[in-house]
């Protein structure tokens, strides 16, 4: 048998109850959500803080590593100093007179020079052409008459030779 329709009084009463219940439920829901949010927020905050702490720690570690690398580089640089090319002060020491002598006309004209060439293993002597006038030989000093002339001193050692090698 279908239920008789609610009277207005009952309907309002039920509606109030519903509202009441619903509001309470909503309130509870809100409270629950808020509580949940708070908890989540707190957890999130904690999580964020941890994250930030990790990030800070990572940055600090990175900075330490960079600093250590810089110190190592400085130490290495101290062992192997960087060569700095400096502009040398310009000085003029060669006079134009010397240049005129060294670069006079005819300087590069081939020929000339005077030398005695000793072929290895022989005593062949040669002289370059054109031949320069030989220096006058010095007159030997007169020797005093002695019954027993002193032995000639040993010849002095030859000076070290100048070296010429191809280039």
């Amino acid at each position: 048998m279908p239920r008789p329709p609610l009277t207005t009084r009952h309907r309002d009463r039920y509606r109030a109850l519903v509202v009441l219940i619903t509001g309470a439920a909503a309130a509870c829901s809100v409270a629950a959500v808020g509580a949940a949010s708070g908890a989540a927020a707190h957890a999130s905050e904690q999580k964020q803080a941890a994250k930030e702490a990790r990030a800070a720690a990572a940055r600090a570690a990175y900075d330490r590593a960079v600093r250590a690398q810089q110190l190592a580089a400085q130490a290495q640089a101290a062992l192997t100093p960087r060569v700095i090319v400096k502009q040398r002060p310009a000085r003029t020491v060669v006079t134009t007179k010397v240049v005129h002598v060294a670069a006079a006309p005819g300087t590069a004209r081939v020929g000339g020079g005077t030398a005695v060439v000793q072929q290895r293993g022989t005593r062949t002597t040669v002289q370059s052409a054109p031949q320069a006038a030989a220096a006058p030989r010095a007159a030997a000093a007169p020797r005093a008459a002695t019954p027993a002339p002193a032995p000639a001193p040993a010849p002095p050692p030859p000076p070290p030779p100048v070296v010429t090698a191809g280039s």
Partner: protein
Amino acid sequence: MTAPDVGVSTWSALGTTVELHVADPAELARATTRARDVLDEVDASCSRFRADSDLVRANRRPGRWTPVSPVLVGAVRIALEAAHETAGRVDPSLGEAMEAAGYDRTFDLLSRATDLPTALPGVVRPGAWREIGVRPDAVLVPHGARLDLGATGKAYAADLVAADLATTLGAPAAISVGGDVRVTDAPHHTSLHGRYRWPVVVGETRTDLADHPDDTVSLLLESGGVATSTVRARRWMRGGREWHHVLDPANGLPVAGPWRSVTALGHTCTAANTATTAALVLGDAAPAWLEQRGVAALLVDEQGERHPTSAWRASAEDDSADLAAPRRGGGR
């Protein structure tokens, strides 16, 4: 007769070894200081390996006059004279070809072996040296050319040092710049010390001097200079090819003639070096060319056989002279 004491100093300059011998050891320190100063100025003026040298500045301004030091002016003048003397076989305008071949830094820094290809040097302009301009205070490098004084630079430096020491020292001296030797010819040296003869040992390379003494030649240099040019020194690999520093001006490639070294005398060290470089480039024609000019020279072929010119062989010395006697003075 006093023993011929000689002061000797050795150092590095111009990318090579320098030796200075002074007949009076008391003057060695002063002579060394002056020689160092002269060579420093040559380096600052004429080096193609320094960005701040006068030569490099001039090369960077082709077709324009560039103010430069008198030292470079002198170096370019005698380099051009050497080019005229040899009809261009000794060519001061091969800088681009040399750099393209890899010799673009001092030889100590040059990589001995590299797979890098040679750069295309462009056309080698035979005769470009004729367009090089020289004024008392400036030089002009033509377009398509680049100054490189390697063929005469060290010899010129030796002549400069000798000219400077001749006016400042009281004793004879001999200077070797990378094996290019010049002795001082000051008249007052001769009058005070007699005709001084400097013992000189000639080798193809510095290694030969120590390792193969039997292959060396000894001579007593009285005046002028002596130089040796060789294709055995300063060699490097580039682009799968072996290069050396004596280029043929006709094509910019290393000379490939019959001579592995040439030694020559000259009234100056530049004259001697001009003859030796020209001989390597001339190849088979070198003996006749040297004979025509009366050059005393010794050519060594690839088999090590020696070919002296008649001036080198000619005997004008008294054979009874004792070559082991003291070398100072005229009483021989």
